[in-house]
Each structure stands twice: as structure tokens, then as C-alpha cells.
């Protein structure tokens, strides 16, 4: 028994080492960097002054808050949308279902940059969506480009396939007799959803929540191209520190903050939804 367990670890060792090397080392290097003095701040390192600096300026706090808000908004919109889509997907028969899943994965294959370029064209004031409405005098110029709404729209679109696929897998794991048992006991469609489908799919809702939140919080392309300088998030801030102000240490601290916040959010999310997962 013990020998077998040792063997397991031995067999796992190469991949664990590789993971540590590829993931752990850069992370450690980045975190070490974030503790060092830089052109703006002189202190005897390693110390947390970079973090203190970022956390003491209202401007950066605003960036942090915006990052979390965008991620939360994206998650809160993507989960119900994804849930509805996953339920529809479940109703499709084999061939149509496969086609739909291929269609869903297409934006992932195309890559976020391609898709964001499309959104830039679509969301422009003179674009095909808003252009005619604005011209007809039906709506005032909404200026979606450069606004938070524009970023959220594109983020939702970006994370939606992941949400749908995660929720779809979760829904499929519910045995069909569960629904039939509930029906035979007198549960209508709404009761079945509330008492059977939803509670049994909560683990996948949690997964989808973590995935969508993390993807949105760490995404760079959408806030960069659609939000611009007026909608800085932690990722675009990191990029500014590196590319514009050449402050690698502050960039590392901002990235470290992002990492910590995402970890904290995942823990909070797990605690919040996990309370409802029984037994």
C-alpha cells in the first residue's frame, strides 16, 4: 500500500517538476520582482512598498475596483445566459447538438483578438447596430466604444462559450430519471427546475462562475481595445507600467495584486455557492 503510494508520487514527479518549472518559476520571479525598489520608489527591499503605493492611490484603487466589477458583471450576465443556452443545447438531438457545440467553440478557435476587432466595428457609433438607430433619431449617441458597457458586452461574448460548455456538461450529468421521478411526484416545469435541475447543477454553476470571473478579470484584449485608457483594468495597467512607464516592479506588483484578488474571489465564490451544494 505504502509502496504503491510512493510509486504514484514517483510517477507523478516528472510532470510535477515540469509544472513547477513552467508555472512556478515565472510566478516566483514576478513576485520577487514586485518586492524590489524602482524608479519611483526607493526602499531597501525586499518590502511591500510597491503594493502599498498602488493601494494608497485613489486612481489605482479605482482600477482595482473596476477590474473586479467588470469580472463580476461579466460573470453575472454570462451564467444565466449560458445556463439557458446549455438547457437549449440539451434539448437538441445528437447531430444538431454537435453542430451547435462546434459553433460555440468557433469564437474560441478564432481567438479573442479577431472577435474583438469585430466588436470594435459593430459597437462603433456609426456601426451597423447603432448607426441606423442614431440616424433615425431613435436613440442618443450611446458611445459604447470606450465605455464599460462595451467592454462588458465583449467580455460576456468572450466567456460565454466556456460557461455554456461547463454548464452543459453539468446538466448532462443529471440522470434523466431524476426529472421523471420529480414529474411523477407532481412537480411542474418550474418546480422541477427549482428543486432538481438547479440544485443538482450547482457544482457546474460554481465551476462556470470561477472560469468566467477569472477569464474576465485576467483578460487584456477586451479592456485594451474596447475600453482604452478611460477604462483601465489591472491587466491594461500592467501593460502601461511595462510599455509606457518602464516600471517592471510596479507592473509585477499590479500583477501580483490581480493574482491575489482572483484567488480571493474564487475562495469567496466557492464559499458563497458551496453553501447551497448538498450533501
Amino acid at each position, binding site marked *: 500500500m505504502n509502496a504503491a503510494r510512493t510509486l504514484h508520487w514517483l510517477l507523478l514527479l516528472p510532470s510535477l517538476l515540469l509544472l513547477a518549472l513552467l508555472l512556478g518559476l515565472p510566478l516566483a520571479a514576478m513576485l520577487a520582482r514586485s518586492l524590489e525598489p524602482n524608479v519611483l520608489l526607493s526602499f531597501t527591499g525586499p518590502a511591500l512598498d510597491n503594493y502599498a503605493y498602488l493601494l494608497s492611490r485613489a486612481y489605482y484603487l479605482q482600477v482595482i475596483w473596476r477590474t473586479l466589477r467588470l469580472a463580476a458583471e461579466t460573470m453575472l450576465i454570462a451564467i444565466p445566459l449560458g445556463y439557458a443556452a446549455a438547457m437549449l443545447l440539451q434539448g437538441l438531438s445528437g447531430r444538431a447538438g454537435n453542430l451547435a457545440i462546434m459553433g460555440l467553440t468557433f469564437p474560441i478557435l478564432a481567438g479573442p483578438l479577431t472577435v474583438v476587432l469585430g466588436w470594435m466595428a459593430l459597437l462603433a457609433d456609426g456601426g451597423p447596430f447603432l448607426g441606423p438607430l442614431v440616424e433615425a433619431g431613435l436613440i442618443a449617441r450611446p458611445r459604447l466604444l470606450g465605455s464599460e458597457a462595451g467592454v462588458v458586452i465583449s467580455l460576456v461574448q468572450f466567456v460565454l462559450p466556456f460557461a455554456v460548455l461547463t454548464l452543459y456538461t453539468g446538466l448532462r450529468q443529471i440522470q434523466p430519471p431524476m426529472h421523471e*421521478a420529480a*414529474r411523477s411526484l407532481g412537480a411542474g416545469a418550474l418546480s422541477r427546475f427549482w428543486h432538481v435541475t438547479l440544485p443538482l447543477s450547482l457544482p457546474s454553476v460554481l465551476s462556470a462562475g470561477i472560469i468566467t470571473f477569472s477569464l474576465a478579470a485576467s483578460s487584456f484584449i477586451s479592456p485594451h481595445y474596447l475600453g482604452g485608457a478611460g477604462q483601465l483594468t489591472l491587466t491594461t495597467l500592467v501593460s502601461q507600467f511595462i510599455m509606457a512607464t518602464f516600471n517592471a516592479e510596479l507592473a509585477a506588483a499590479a500583477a501580483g495584486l490581480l493574482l491575489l484578488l482572483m484567488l480571493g474571489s474564487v475562495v469567496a465564490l466557492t464559499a458563497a455557492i458551496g453553501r447551497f451544494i448538498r450533501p
Partner: protein
Amino acid sequence: MPELVLSHVTRRFSGHTAVDDLSLTVRDGEFVCLLGPSGCGKTTTLRIIAGFERADAGSLTLDGADITALPPEKREIGVVFQSYALFPHKTVAENIGFGLKMRGRSRAEIATAVEQALALVRLDGLGGRYPRALSGGQQQRVALARALAIRPRLLLMDEPLSNLDAQLREEMRVEIRRIQHSLGITAVLVTHDQGEALAMADRVAVMSQGRLQQMAAPAEIYEAPATAFVGHFIGQVNVLEGRLEQVDGRTGLLALPGGLKLAGAGQGLAAGQAARAMVKQERIALTRAEPTGLPNRFPCRVVERTYLGGGIAYRCAAAGASLTALLPNHPLFERFAPGDAAWLGWTAADCTIFPG
């Protein structure tokens, strides 16, 4: 008053007919077993009764009211699933109380009903557990209690005992009958285990390829099979093919290719016709002395002996025909070894002849 009536119910799946013009009546308070080989349409029939599957043709009435188009949640029919389908995220008590909760009953009323149901299936005190913390047998009882808690008009069970070990299965047969009897509820149980059907049912409905073959009391199904299929399917049967030589009303003489002539009984027999005789293994006597009292008696040689515990099966060769006789494992019965010479014998009544 007849309780459940199926008339000409048919269900097709992409060209394949799973249930074919099925008509049957389950009487008030009756326990009916649907019996048949795998794929004969038992589950489909049950699902049509429950409302999970639609009937392509035909109609169903329950208590005299047409339920053909009624959705399952309105049918007031309790269902026990083969996989039990207990809600894993609800406790035993919540599972059992679910149906009453859907009916908007008060908390106190549900609690009382759950206690009663738990007592009925002898699971007192386990209401707070989650299904995964129960044994298979206990889960089965919870599934039964859950289906019964809504006081259904009809109880349906699809192979409810198939996931239990042999001993528990026998116990649950008695238990299910006890509960069904004490509640006086009408019940339909699907099984492919003929022992289960014969032991439990008031009447057995034998199905084959989506069609009803015979519906009768267990003894009648066993002793007087209505079709060749039932004759062959129920019990352990010797099938002998030949040609009818003489027919006199319901009795006939069947000549086998090897020269044996069997006296038997059947319906719709005509001389010259090809026919099959069916003799149950335990109805064949195997003796060293000639059984002069039996109309069918042939000298034979024992070919193979199979020890079965409660009985011993002897495969014997007689004039080119191979027959198996099943004797009780009891000192009053003679013992044989392969190679022994002996006599086979049976009555004409135990030799059912089917044309074709």
C-alpha cells in the same frame, strides 16, 4: 370496477414497433407483473402508463377517465425506477415528502406522512440521512416509500429488485406484496425474472415483441400456456418438433423424426400439420422400471447429469431426441449416472402441442 385499461396501445421508434396493439386491464387493487424477454417493450409500456412516453395509437383510462393526453405530473401515478432515481441532494425524509410538498401540503402534514411511510417500509429513524449513505436495499425502500407517499392511484415499478442480491430480492418480493396488500393499491411491476413474476403477481402479463401473449394467474400461465411463446418462455421446457399424425378434438399424436410418438393436448390442431410439443423438465419422470401408467414412455440412455442443489437435471437420449428430466434431490427419487439405461415418462396433459 376496472382500474387501468390500455386499449390498442402502440408505440413505434423509427420504424421499430416497441409496443404493438397492446390491450390489457389491471383491476382495482390487483398486482400485475409485466413479464417478457429483454427488449420486448415492458419498460416502454410502463413509461406510456406513467406518461413519460406517448402512445402513437390507442388510449389509456384510469378510474374510467381518459389519461392518454394527461402529463405525468397530473396522473397521480407513483413510479419506482430501476435506478431508484432518489434525489441525491435531498435527505430521505425530503425525498419521501417531495410529492406532498409539490401538492402544497403543510409542513406538519408532510412530517406525519413521512414518518408513516418510513414505518411502512421499516426504515424508521433514517429520515435524516442522504441517499448515498444508504445500502441498495434501503434506497429501494426509500424509492418505494417516496412513490407511495403521494397516495397514488396506481403504483408502477420497473425491475425494482434487479439491483439487489438474491437473498434481499426474495425478501423484498414478500415485502412489496405485504405493503401493496396493506394499502390495497393497484400495482404494475415490470420484470424479466419469471420466478419473480410468478411469485408476486395476482396476474402475469407475458409480452413478446411488443405484443401481449397471455394475461392470467401465475398457475394458469405455467400450466396452460396460451401460445407457443409462453409455453417455451415459462419454466424449463423440452421442445420437440414433429408432425401431427392423428388429431382427436383437443388431443393429438405427434410423430418425431426419430420415430417417437408423443400423446399431447393442444388447440387448433390438424392432422398432417407440423407442430411442437413442450414438456416441462420437472414433469418428466425418470425411472429404471418402465412407467406403465404414463402414455408417453420411452427407453433412454442418460447422457449428462447436472447437480443443481435442490434438483438434479439429467439429459437423456431417446430415439434421436434429447430430453432433460429434472428430478428433486430427494432420497425417494432414483439416482442415475451418465451411461445408465432408464425410462422417460410423462402424461398427455403435461405435453402441450402447438401448431406451427
